[in-house]
């Protein structure tokens, strides 16, 4: 089981940062939903934080190497579940992302990110090659690509995209040659072009068009971006005050409790609040990458890096989206956004990082 001494090596800074961010999330959800039909959303999130802490601690009981050893099994399960959801999952708002489990709807794709992290840690952690070429990463790349495709078919493009930085960052760490990094970038551009032509749904395309020029459709797809930008900008240096944001409280920020929670924060607490929260995220990501540095083996380093990269991508993308810098995609802000699966998955991710760090001396 677990050695009691391991707890002395627990990264309390990471734990505290995680809890503070989750707490800020609950407070912002309370503010964002006070006028809506679901005023008790913050309570649900609060329970979820409790559940998340339990999940995080449970995750510490198992040595991360044992988990990584079973990565292929997890991978198989993930594929089966994603295929099942795609064909038999309930259709909610035109998408099939959900899986009913014990009476609650969960979004398997959120947990598939963790499986993917374990998977790449297994593949690249066990590799003893000093430098990798494109051919060496083609196999694992396709395996992760399959997961991404299944998620993208839901359709849930945002989560599918998360797997790209996850895979690339670990491949990079494992010693992908710089030449290969360059050609990969080229491939991505080509794939992106083809994807634009054939894979993107119309609503996704129109989101990108209106991102490029929001005034094309100020009442439709450009609406979210414009309103979010106004909310953020009008927050000013110190914000309009907690629960006082007119943009948020008047209820025309869509998804203000979920994907656009940062926009509520920016409006009500201003640049000051934005700096504090971004600072906390920086601390969180720094501790995660630090864990990768300190890890006792390649497997641990790869696992921590994979998780850190996914986290970093989500944070940066979501915050950039709220600020109107990138197209709107359904991607929650980890730890802050309301969402059962997203929050639990984030806590489990932190749990895995803690797991790697506290076992760095253990044999």
């Amino acid at each position: 089981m677990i050695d009691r001494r391991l707890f002395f090596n627990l990264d309390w800074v990471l734990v505290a940062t995680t809890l503070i961010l989750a707490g800020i999330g609950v407070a912002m959800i309370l503010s964002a939903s006070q006028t809506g039909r679901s005023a008790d959303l913050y309570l649900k999130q609060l329970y979820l934080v409790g559940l998340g802490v339990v999940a995080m601690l449970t995750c510490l009981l198992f040595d991360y190497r044992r988990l990584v050893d079973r990565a292929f099994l997890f991978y198989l399960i993930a594929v089966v579940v994603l295929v099942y959801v795609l064909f038999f999952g309930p259709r909610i708002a035109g998408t099939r992302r959900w899986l009913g489990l014990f009476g609650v709807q969960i979004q398997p794709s959120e947990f598939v990110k963790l499986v993917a992290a374990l998977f790449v840690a297994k593949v690249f952690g066990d590799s003893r090659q000093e430098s990798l070429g494109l051919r060496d990463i083609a196999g694992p790349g396709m395996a992760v690509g399959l997961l991404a495709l299944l998620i993208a078919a839901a359709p849930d493009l945002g989560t599918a995209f998360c797997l790209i930085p996850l895979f690339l960052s670990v491949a990079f760490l494992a010693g992908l040659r710089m030449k290969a990094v360059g050609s990969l970038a080229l491939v991505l551009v080509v794939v992106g072009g083809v994807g634009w032509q054939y894979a993107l749904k119309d609503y996704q395309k129109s989101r990108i068009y209106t991102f490029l020029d929001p005034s094309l459709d100020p009442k439709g797809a450009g609406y979210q971006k414009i309103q979010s930008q106004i909310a953020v900008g009008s927050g000013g240096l110190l914000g309009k005050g907690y629960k006082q944001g007119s943009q948020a409280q008047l209820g025309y920020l869509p998804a203000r409790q979920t994907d656009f929670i940062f926009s509520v924060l920016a409006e009500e607490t201003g640049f000051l609040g934005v700096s504090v929260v971004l600072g906390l995220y920086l601390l969180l990501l720094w501790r995660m990458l630090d864990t990768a540095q300190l890890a006792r083996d390649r497997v641990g380093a790869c696992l921590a890096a994979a998780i850190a990269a996914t986290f970093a991508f989500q944070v940066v993308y979501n915050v950039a989206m709220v600020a109107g810098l990138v197209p709107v995609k359904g991607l929650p802000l980890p730890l802050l956004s309301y969402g059962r699966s997203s929050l639990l998955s984030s806590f489990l991710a932190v749990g895995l990082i803690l797991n790697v760090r506290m076992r760095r001396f253990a044999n």
Partner: protein
Amino acid sequence: MRIYEDLRIVQGRLSILQSMVVGLLALLLIHFWNLQVVRGRYFRAQAENNRTRAVSLAAPRGALLDRKGLVLVENRPSFNVVLTPEHSEDLDAAVVRLSHALGLGEAVVRERLARRPSQFHPVVVKTDASLEDVAALEARRMELPEVSVDVVPLRAYPLASAAAHALGRVGEITERQIETREFEGLEAGALVGQAGLESQYNRSLMGRDGYRRVVVNSRGVEVGEAERQPPVDGPSLTLTLDSSLQAAVEQAFAGRAGSAVALEPETGEILAMTSIPAYDPNRFTTGVDAALWGRLSTDPETPLMNRVIQGQYAPGSVFKIVMATAGLQEGVITPSTTFYCPGHLSVYNTIFRCNRPGGHGLVSVEQALAQSCNVFFYNLGIRLEIARIASWAKKMGLGAPTGVDLPHELGGLIPSPEWKMRTQRVQWYGGETVSVAIGQGQVSVTPLQLARLAAIVANGGRLVRPHLVRSVGGVPIPIEPPVDLGLKPETLAVLRAGMRAVVDGGTGWRAHLDGLSIGGKTGSAQVVGKARLEKNPTLTAIVPHGWFVAFAPADAPRIALAVMVEHGGSGGEAAAPVAREILAHYFGLASPRAATTAVVAEVAP
């Protein structure tokens, strides 16, 4: 001794990733500085000047139609005066000006303002405002930019108090209701069904509200529409009620307190349902005023109660239908069994009297029904014993809710030794069985249960589920198949012959109509009503309630009904004539009273 892996490359490249993260977050922070601090003033102006707000578009509630498609409940357009505090620069001054313009007390407006869920919520200051109000506000439009007039559908009941209890009423959602699951998602001020069908089918009738997202400038004046989600109308309900028959029933009571319900014996479709005194549901649609509510809810005549499903009375001699059925089915008597009636029966050290002091002589079950001979049924009751009586009464649907599609139906009571032991911890004694045999004592039933009892005899022994709604939005509601009680043909023959004899020269002769064969049964419910009598000595509360149940035509019944006239005396005197009026109207026949009024009408001009 552990062997450390060589992690130098990994660690080196990690540093690159670390710097990337720091770099990206720093870039974001710079962007936010630019948005919030450098361009903050610009966006703040945008937020002020380009505000949009959601305006709810109330979905019209579904209409209620009678079985022929005539309108029973509909919506009419009305004006709501709405105050949007967010648009106000000086809310206090606005409240003063507004209450002056509308002739309302400032306190009323302030109280409504205080109840809004958030500072940004528009508040309805006055519902169903008059055209004068609207004109007064239009004239002050420039002084009161925060006030607007919305056109909203308002519930209208063109029949006023007719069938009021069945149709029900709407009212503002209460604070208690908002917290219940049933009303999840509704906000303060929403109109919901509060009684009758309006309550039973509330969710379906409400439809789905839509909204308009309008763009307004900083003065609150609408400058454009950003988005529109049209409301989905509530589907209309087609009822089983026949509004012409309903009117006839109301008229037949001529203002006396009581209740009546008529249904189709085969299907259980309710054709008319009346409870008097009633109230006008139109008075509730804009929120009831406290004085009216207080008067209605404390009135000893209980106008808010639907007597048809909530009035629990002793069935009196109508219960003899159950007794005859039980006796014949259990083989305790045959159609030819007779008992001798000397006008009373002495058992259990008590003298139980017959309704005819001189006695009926030797009577069969058919004659006993026709003459409502108590002694016959005392004898039958003693032989059946309470368990079998209770069992048949329950089988025939007495003492339990009928399952009609109305809220808050009561069940009445069929007493039994187990019930008495459980509730009073006292033994059952034989004399009580004798009282139960003529429908007195602890037995209590609702008028709807008795109408269904008549329907059982009419339809050949099947227990139907009474209901008021035929279809929702054109989709028929499936009818529950009736429960066959398995009555023997001879049982049915005796019941029908006995009930026909009630009207043809028996206790219910006043219900007779030329050209129509009617089966019926009279009854009277003894009432004590002591408490009410003490309050009001002139009240006739000591006079029993009169019952009459009937079906017609006797050979192929199309209607079954129960009539109860409160404190009307015997059922034959009070209730049978009311039933006659109802049946005369339904079959288009001239009733003696209708004939006189017709003559008067001819003479008058």
